[in-house]
Each structure stands twice: as C-alpha cells, then as structure tokens.
C-alpha cells in the first residue's frame, strides 16, 4: 500500500465525518445560515493552503497545513488564532556552462535543502457586507510570528577542476510580521462551513537567529542564484481552503 492509498483512506474518513455532520445538521440547517451565525460564538477547524509564491519555498509551490480557533463577539467581527505548518525540500543537480569562465568546460553542481516553517497568526476578521450574496465575503488582517529553519548544501566543480566551490548553510530564525486575507464562506451545515481564501504574509527582519542570518528566499539553484526581492525580508502568498466547525 502506497502513502497515497493511506491518504485516500484518511480522506474517505474525513469525508465520512463531514457528511455525517452534514446529515445531522440538515434539520437544523433549514433556518438561514446567517441567522444561525448570529447565535454562534466559537469556531475551530483546519486548513490547507498552496503557496503561490513564498521565500520559504524558494518561490516554488508548497503546501501548508493549519489549525485555528476563533471567537465571534458579533456576526460582523471575529478574532482568531492560527497555527500553520509547512515544509519544503529541494534536491537536484545540473551541468551547465559558466560563460564567464569557459564555454567548453562544463560545471557540475549538486544542491539540496530542507526548510520548515511554523507560523502563528492573531487575526481580526470583518464581514462588512449584509447584502445577500456578499454577506459571506470577509476580510482579515493581523499580526504574525514565524519560526523558520533551513539547512542546505550546494557544491560545484568544473570538469577541469580549476573551479571548486561548496557552501553549507544552517539557519534558524524568528521574525514578526503581518497577515491579510480575503475569504468567502461556503455554508455546508449549521455547524460546518468551508472558507476559500487567498492570504498573504509579510515579515520583518528576523529578531533572533541561530546560525547564519540569511534571507530564506535566496535560491541556490544554478543559474538562479539571485533574489526575487518581492518581499524585503520574506513573505508568502497562498490560496487555500479552511474547514470550520461553528459552535
């Protein structure tokens, strides 16, 4: 049995639980979902997001999982705490010609890296619209803290051995930042809904570093050893979905 098979089994269980909850709440869900939300004060759940761009994933796609808890004093306002986990690995090699040195003697490189991030968000979400169709559109903003770690290794050698280089990097860093998101709630039942969202994080310079103080966005892939510079010190933009229990 492959790992994907287990994931599929896990997915079936999750879907079963979701459908079971939906089945239980169908009767009570006869009332409009918006009315129900006025009486609910807590939410919790999990999310999955794909990073479109981000320094930790070196501007390549990566997945993150999250969990959150939120309280809602009034329908239009929600305060939430979220914890997100992600990891990204990069392994490869390349043969290329550094034209500044030689157009006939290639350089062989190998690279690998492993990155992990743990992001904590404290956010405030507002639902400013009351019109039907727009009432589930919400805007979120807040503060974040990120613990990021990476180890990487990059080496290269030209076939005539005139050029040898290697570099190993170890860094672990903590940085404050901010987050913003736009999301749309899709009601599933009276206690369950799903939010589809696009979210952005931006971070300040790390306030604590172990190892080298390097920017995570530096790409060590040959021919791409430059920085994109979209975020001064780091950040990410992701799209994802969140499954929410309301109670």
């Amino acid at each position, binding site marked *: 049995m492959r790992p994907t098979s287990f994931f599929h089994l*896990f997915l079936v269980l999750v*879907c079963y639980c979701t*459908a079971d909850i939906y089945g239980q709440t169908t009767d009570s869900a006869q009332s409009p979902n918006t009315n129900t939300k006025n009486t609910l004060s807590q939410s919790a759940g999990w999310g999955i997001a794909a990073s479109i761009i981000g320094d930790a994933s070196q501007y390549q796609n990566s997945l993150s999982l999250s969990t959150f808890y939120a309280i809602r004093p009034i329908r239009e306002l929600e305060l939430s705490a979220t914890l997100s986990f992600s990891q990204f690995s990069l392994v490869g090699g390349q043969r290329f010609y550094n034209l500044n040195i030689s157009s006939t003697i290639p350089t062989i490189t190998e690279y690998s890296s*492993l990155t992990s991030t743990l992001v904590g968000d404290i956010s405030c979400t507002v639902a400013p619209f009351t019109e039907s169709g727009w009432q589930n559109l919400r805007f979120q903003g807040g503060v974040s803290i990120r613990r990021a770690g990476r180890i990487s290794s990059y*080496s290269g*050698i030209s*076939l005539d051995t005139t050029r040898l280089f290697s570099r190993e990097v170890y860094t*672990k860093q903590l940085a404050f930042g901010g987050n913003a998101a736009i999301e749309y709630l899709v009601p599933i039942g009276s206690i369950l809904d799903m939010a589809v969202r696009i979210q952005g994080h931006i971070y300040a310079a790390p306030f604590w570093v172990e190892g080298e103080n390097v920017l995570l966005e530096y790409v060590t892939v040959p021919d791409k050893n430059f920085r994109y510079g979209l975020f001064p010190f780091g950040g990410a933009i992701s799209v994802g979905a969140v499954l929410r*229990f309301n109670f």
Partner: protein
Amino acid sequence: MQRIIVLLFIISIGFSFAPVVAQTSSIFSALTENVDSVKKHRIGWGISVSEGMVTYSNDEGEVLFSMLYAQRISPTTEIELALHYTSIQKRSPDLSSTVSGMSLAWHFDVTFMFQPFSQFFQPLRLGVGPSLLLWDTMGIFPARYTPRTITSPIPTLPNGSGGINIAAFAMNTKAEWLAVQQPTFDIGIRAQVHLFANPFDGASLIPLVGGLGSGGVFLYLRF
C-alpha cells in the same frame, strides 16, 4: 487529470458511504440512548514533549504539536482523527567538520478511544489504532573533493548532504487522564506512543523498527 478523477471518486465514496453508516448508527444510537447527541463532536489541540527516532533520540524533549477531531460513537467510545507534527533542527558546534541536521515528521492517526472505567478512574481514557508516519530528515556536512583517478576519470565534489525520506505504517496507543471535564471543554494529560516498522517507501538505511513517545497537555472543545 487521472489523479483528480481518482480523488473525486474517493471523495464521492466517502460522502456516499456516510448515509448508509448513518442509518446503521441511528439504530446503534437507539440502542445506546444515553449518548449525549448534543456534544457529539470534539476538537482538540495538544502540545507535548517527545522523544524517539524522529527526534534523533537526543533527550532534549522536543515539542510535538497535535490537532485532532473526534466523533463520539457511544457514551464511552470515540473515533479520533489526529495529526501530529514535530520539527527539530540541530546545529553542530563546528559546521566545518561535523554534521548539522533537521528532522520533520508527520504522524496521521485513526484511533479508537474508549473510557471504560467508572468512579475514581472515570477520567481515564485509552486508545489504540493505526498510524502513518511521514519522515523527512537531512544532514549537512562539508563537501569533500574526490580527485581524478585511473578508475574514476571524472573528479567529483559531491553535495555535502544526506537525507532520508520514509513512509511507514505505525500503530499508536494513547492513555489520557481528563483532569478537567466541563460540558463544553476538557483538559487532558495524555501520553501516547507511535511504533512503526518496515518503511514501505523511502530509504532502507534506517532500523526496521522505531517509535516516538510523547506526553503533554491537550485542550478539547466539545459541541
């Protein structure tokens, strides 16, 4: 596209399976009238200190984060879906001569939890079930140049890293003492062990049997 179709198919099985089981469970519920249907669901989070193969067994009490959802199936039993994450990163004192490393591990659980006792031991819950371990680890060390030889005419400078990525089935056992039990939330002290054997995917360089033990505090919301 094929993967998407397979995924949708599996999701549809999950959703279509539920009504059938729901009818069965309604019969079951009729037989167990004491089930508190109002508080059937439980969401929880936990933070634990852990020790085991994925933490390099370095006796430093690495942090394990847990998140879970559980659904009650009888007054004393639950099915729990849980996800645990641990990440450690160790820096050697001298990066130029020794290895630094990182280890990231996910444990997926499906656990049958039961609370079989009464009176003094009523807060004690026990659980057992299957797990899946996904483990990525990588170490870095100075790259070492291998010069040209007669038998190896191409000189090399291998990348100074080595890693293991494995997937393995595991078993989990859990024991928990619900120190605080309220109508809407619980706080539990939990110990759990994950044991895995024979990774079915990834490198074969690791021992055939390994595990992770952890103990910590869990907060549950019931609704």
